[in-house]
């Protein structure tokens, strides 16, 4: 090899060495860079891991603690994760059996669900999805779902999450409310009473009847003030009461109110107003129920008029009876006196027949006098003149024993102590006396017995007066209580006695009936209402 070649080779070698050094330095440099990058990556990694753990833990916390059922599903509706609440509600555990949410949807809601899913994918969120589903144990529930898509780093949807709310009860309640509202509507629309809703006097709503009552068409009254349809002069009555109600002193009130019809005529009503309060207890508006009482008022007025007339007529009759009896009695007294004088002055001249005739005249006069008294008594018995007080019937019977003529062979016996009752003393006296004296007078057996007994029912006192007298034939049983029917013209009865008895019993809202057999005796049974 020549020197030149050696030289060349040496130079080339030299360059190679230097190139190698260069390469080594570049390598070192690269190594250091790599080391730095690696360390940086490690620390970034550590930080990322830490953040990820934090986030995962946060998410777990949220997941576990969400009270509502919370579900994560993939894009084919398979459940990826569900919290405890969801497992309980849906009745499934995705870790035990794989669940596909589309299987739970009720068939009526399949189309709606498809539309909602499409919307979810378009918008990214799903709000107020409501459908019927079937849960694990087969029961149907109505749910509301709010959810959103979950994306990967490139904004591609990879899953969806949602919160499920059980609104079955809500839905039922809503349906019930709607039902009740409909029922209320029917009641209001068809009520025979007029119904008005007002707010501070402004009419918000009326039912058809109210409009009819005032002659307005549907909706004509809305927005108008009650003042406009109230009769002038009538408004002030209600203002005071309205204020009391609005301030909470009273909850409702009822007044007689005159409305003004569309044609200008007045409508008399009974109006009941109630306050409708909101949840805070403030009066929100007023509800009025309006009843047309024109008819009623007319009837009442008529009744009053009739009563007045009746009273006047009664008074008139009483006066008449008084006057008549007085006018009738006066000549009787004269006739009686004259007959007596005739008897005294001419007793030497008159024979037995004549004296007899005079005697009979006196008897007849007396009978007529009694009769006039009887008529007067009868006509004076009326409800208004009853003065009720506490009376002891035993006392009354004893009084009667003293007053009337009781033949020696007759005994009046009280079987059980008679009660103390509330009634008009005079009338009851009359009542008992009339029956007892009848009983006493018509006994022919040797031992006459008049038995008085009583009993009690919840509403009435019952009495029985029995005798062993001659009895009353059956054909007279009806007539006997009628005025002027006497079965015997000889004795001192005016024929009015039992009519008076019946009138008094009627006044006391009782009943009277008789049992009698000719030759055996008679029993009068009557009752008086307890007052």
């Amino acid at each position: 090899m020549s020197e030149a070649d050696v030289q060349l080779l040496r130079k080339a070698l030299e360059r190679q060495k230097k190139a190698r050094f260069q390469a080594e330095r570049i390598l070192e440099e690269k190594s250091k860079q790599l080391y730095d990058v690696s360390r940086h990556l490690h620390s970034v990694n550590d930080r990322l891991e830490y953040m990820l753990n934090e986030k995962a833990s946060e998410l777990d916390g949220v997941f576990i603690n969400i009270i509502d059922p919370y579900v994560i599903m993939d894009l084919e509706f398979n459940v990826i994760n569900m919290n405890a609440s969801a497992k309980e509600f849906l009745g499934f555990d995705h870790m035990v059996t794989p669940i596909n949410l589309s299987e739970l949807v009720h068939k009526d809601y399949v189309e709606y669900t498809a539309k909602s899913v499409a919307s979810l994918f378009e918008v990214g969120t799903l709000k107020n999805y409501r459908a019927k589903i079937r849960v694990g144990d087969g029961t149907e529930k109505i749910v509301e779902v709010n959810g959103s898509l979950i994306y990967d780093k490139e904004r591609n949807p990879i899953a969806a999450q949602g919160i499920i709310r059980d609104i079955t009860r809500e839905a039922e309640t809503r349906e019930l409310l709607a039902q009740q509202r409909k029922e209320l509507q029917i009641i209001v629309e068809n009520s025979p009473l007029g119904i008005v809703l007002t707010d501070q006097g402004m009419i918000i709503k009326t039912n058809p009847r109210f409009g009819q009552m005032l002659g307005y068409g549907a909706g004509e009254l809305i927005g108008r003030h009650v003042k406009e349809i109230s009769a002038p002069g009538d408004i002030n009555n209600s203002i005071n009461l309205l204020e009391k109600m609005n301030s909470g002193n009273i909850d409702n009130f009822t007044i007689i109110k005159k409305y003004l019809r569309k044609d200008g005529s007045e409508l008399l009503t009974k109006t009941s107003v109630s306050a409708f309060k909101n949840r805070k207890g403030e009066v929100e508006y007023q509800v009025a129920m309006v009843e047309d009482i024109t008819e009623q008022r007319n009837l009442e007025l008529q009744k009053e008029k009739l009563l007045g007339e009746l009273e006047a007529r009664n008074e008139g009759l009483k006066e008449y009876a008084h006057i008549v009896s007085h006018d009738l009695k006066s000549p009787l007294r004269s006739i009686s006196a004259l007959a007596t004088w005739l008897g005294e002055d001419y007793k030497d001249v008159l024979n037995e027949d004549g004296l007899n005739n005079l005697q009979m005249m006196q008897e007849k006069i007396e009978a007529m006098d009694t009769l006039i008294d009887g008529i007067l008594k009868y006509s004076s018995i009326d409800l208004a003149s009853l003065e009720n007080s506490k009376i002891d019937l035993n006392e009354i019977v004893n009084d009667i024993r003293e007053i009337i003529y009781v033949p020696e062979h007759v005994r009046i016996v009280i079987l059980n102590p008679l009660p103390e009752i509330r009634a008009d003393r005079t009338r009851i006296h009359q009542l008992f006396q009339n029956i007892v004296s009848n009983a006493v007078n018509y006994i022919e057996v040797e031992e006459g017995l008049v038995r008085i007994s009583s009993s009690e029912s919840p509403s009435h006192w019952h009495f029985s007066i029995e005798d062993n007298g001659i009895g009353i034939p059956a054909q007279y049983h009806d007539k006997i209580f009628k005025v002027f029917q006497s079965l015997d013209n000889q004795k001192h009865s005016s024929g009015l006695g039992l009519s008076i008895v019946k009138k008094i019993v009627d006044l006391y809202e009782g009943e009277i009936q008789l049992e009698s057999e000719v030759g055996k005796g008679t029993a009068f049974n009557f009752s008086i209402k307890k007052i």
Partner: protein
Amino acid sequence: MKGIIFTEFLELVETKFGLEVVDAIIEESAVESGGIYTSVGTYEFSEMVQLLSRLSEKVNTPVGDLLYVFGLYLFNSLGKAHPEVIRAYSDPIELLDSIEDHIHVHVKKLYPDAELPTFKILNKSDHSITMVYSSSRGLYRLAHGLIHKTFEHFNGSATITYELLKPDGTEVKFDIIQDE
């Protein structure tokens, strides 16, 4: 310019023209690096220009032709350094089509500071491709050699024609038609 170009270039010169020529062009061009190149280093492009022109003078061959020959040689060097790139393709047209979007992208990942030419595909078929080479370096003849060798690697050949869209060769249109 990446060191690998320099080292391969000098290898080629040594093989074809001998160590003496190598020494001579280094000494005479008086490049700053002193001719010391390592494949992992980076050096001034101007040094390559100087070395090329010295060589051209020395061996009496136009720079363009030298570059073409270098291109043929460089293909194998690159293939040896990064065999996985060549293996990814079964067809020369496919490979050429992927230089811009895949191969050079891969190169940039490894050598972020590499300054690479850009290729724009004008049209492509199963057996032809038209691409436009752009580079401030104007090394289209190097590209030419690489393209030719590509077809050879896949046991084929092609007719390659080119047209200078810019006179300085910074933009050149290549029409390549694969031979049957």
